[in-house]
């Protein structure tokens, strides 16, 4: 793997920091970050230290509650870590160009290091073999240790190889959590939530393969540690981004749900972004339907909140809800579809409902957009 960028300056972060980097090629990348956060009692405060990240504005909240960030598996929470080191590996597709990682502490956090790796120039990978060799710091209580974040990626299976040692009073254990669901173990009936436990029966070195078949979406694979287990190696099989066909199918499904023409909404997405969920325009429009910040705020008023504009499902849902609102606005008028597309591109206030639709009153770019979508160019 090629190292694209590295920051090894250990420091205390008290306010938001932006770490920029550039990529020469689109492909699969991995961002690893290690940090520590203290619990409130460790530094006589009234709140714990926390640290979360945004990558190109993209947040990584709890899967079940998108409003929760600080104690997400993709964040560092002092209430859980108690100043022990945690490492998070973010895997995703990134496009060519400039990117930025924003470090957002709550009170403060100790930043250990950050590295950006290029994994592949392709957006699909049969196997990713990481010889990590990382040992947990000691604590006689389970806590978050390592998280692998798959952002809009699918994963067929993964295998872990761990070293667990017997220690006085309490030995090494590892919990495996997949998308919030704790892997149940058959190895120890008394400690079923701890998948890997120290046992003379299983030996110090233990391995297991987990067949997960996760579809392209946001996923968290967590390893919690009790005492000092070591992760020697993790092997991921069949990682890939959502294919164009998968995205088209998501578009069609949502369109049917909203009683819209599925193929029309596919064509709009095609002409907006060519189905690139990471597309960003020079004006800041993002995602499959090229939604702007203002449009996202307006979509909230229409009853749907987009937490992550690059999330495929959220961008599709938000864009289609916005389109439906425009379409319903022009209901009962001649050229309803043309007016809707004109309003989509140029703004509803510029396309009066009660006036006859005139092509020669449209800006040229709007006219081209409409004719492309309708296939009349």
């Amino acid at each position, binding site marked *: 793997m090629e190292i694209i960028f590295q920051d090894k300056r250990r420091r205390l972060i008290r306010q938001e920091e932006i770490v920029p980097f550039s990529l020469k090629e689109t492909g699969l990348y991995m961002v690893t970050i290690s940090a520590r956060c203290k619990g409130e009692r460790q530094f006589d405060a009234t709140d714990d230290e926390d640290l979360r990240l945004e990558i190109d504005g993209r947040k990584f909240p709890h899967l079940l509650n998108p409003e929760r960030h600080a104690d997400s598996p993709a964040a560092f929470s002092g209430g859980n870590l108690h100043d022990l080191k945690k490492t998070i590996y973010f895997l995703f597709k990134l*496009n*060519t*160009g400039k990117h930025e990682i924003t470090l957002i502490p709550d009170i403060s956090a100790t930043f250990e290091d950050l590295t950006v790796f290029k994994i592949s120039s392709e957006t699909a990978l049969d196997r990713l073999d990481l010889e990590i060799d990382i040992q947990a710091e000691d604590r006689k209580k389970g806590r978050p240790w390592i998280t692998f974040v798959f952002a809009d990626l699918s994963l067929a299976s993964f295998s872990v190889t761990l070293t667990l040692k017997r220690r006085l009073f309490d030995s090494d254990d590892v919990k495996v959590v997949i998308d919030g669901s704790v892997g149940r173990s058959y190895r120890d009936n008394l400690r079923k939530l701890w998948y890997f436990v120290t046992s003379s029966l299983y030996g110090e070195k233990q391995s297991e393969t987990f067949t997960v078949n996760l579809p392209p979406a946001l996923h968290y694979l967590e390893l919690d540690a009790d005492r000092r287990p070591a992760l020697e190696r993790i092997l991921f099989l069949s990682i890939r981004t959502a294919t164009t066909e998968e995205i088209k199918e998501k578009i069609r499904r949502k369109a049917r749900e909203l009683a819209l023409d599925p193929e029309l909404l596919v064509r709009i997405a*095609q*002409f*907006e*972004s*060519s189905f*690139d969920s990471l*597309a*960003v*325009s*020079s*004006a800041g*429009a993002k995602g499959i339907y*090229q939604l*702007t910040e*203002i*449009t996202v*705020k*307006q979509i*909230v*008023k*229409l009853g749907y909140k987009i937490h992550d504009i690059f999330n495929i499902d959220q961008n599709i849902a938000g864009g289609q809800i*916005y389109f439906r*609102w*425009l379409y319903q*606005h022009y209901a009962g008028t001649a050229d309803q579809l043309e007016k809707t597309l004109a*309003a*989509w*591109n*140029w*703004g*509803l*206030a*510029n396309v009066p409902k009660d006036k006859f639709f005139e092509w*020669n*009153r*449209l*800006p*040229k*770019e*709007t006219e*081209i*957009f409409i004719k*492309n*979508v309708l296939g009349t160019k």
Partner: protein
Amino acid sequence: MKLRSIFIAILLLSAFLLTRNTDPYPINQGEKKDKRTVSSATVPDTISVAESFLDLDSDGKAESFRINSYAGLPGEERTEVFLNDADTPLFSLVGYFEGFFIHNIDYSKEKLLEIRISSGHSINSLAYRYHKGSLVRIPVSTEKEGFFEGVVSRNPTDFIDVDGDGVKEMIVYHREFPPDHRRTVQVYQLKEERFEKLREYEEETQELFL
């Protein structure tokens, strides 16, 4: 009893006077306004304000310039422009405020004010001259002149001296649908009271132009 009633009335009146909001745009409460610099504050989901002092006619005296903008539901976006501390807007535009820029086209005293507003998926760039206490719009001549003014594009404009004659041209970029590694570039020149198109061409782009 009577005294107590009077005292309670005074208390209520004081409470009313203290909490009454006389500012129609109470978005900077508690925030120190530095009128020497451009500042912008955003009320969640609604109003954006930009405020500045700009010497738009290079006479050594700064004109005060303020923008209020409202998003609301689709179609409700409005931007109001206030000049020289006026209480009522000089004009109102359809769209949400995206930014304003001062351009010195030909390095003379005259400055050009560009206001960008967004509407739908497009950016509308409008150019103005300051003249006798007001802002006069400079129309842009296109194939469809007369029906709208300014530039409508998915991309912001540039002001660059492309031919090295010391006068900046307005450069407008139009993306491809679907996005492609090329775009259409239009070059406009300011001729007296309007921007006229000099030429149009296609060019390749390194990044996928969206």
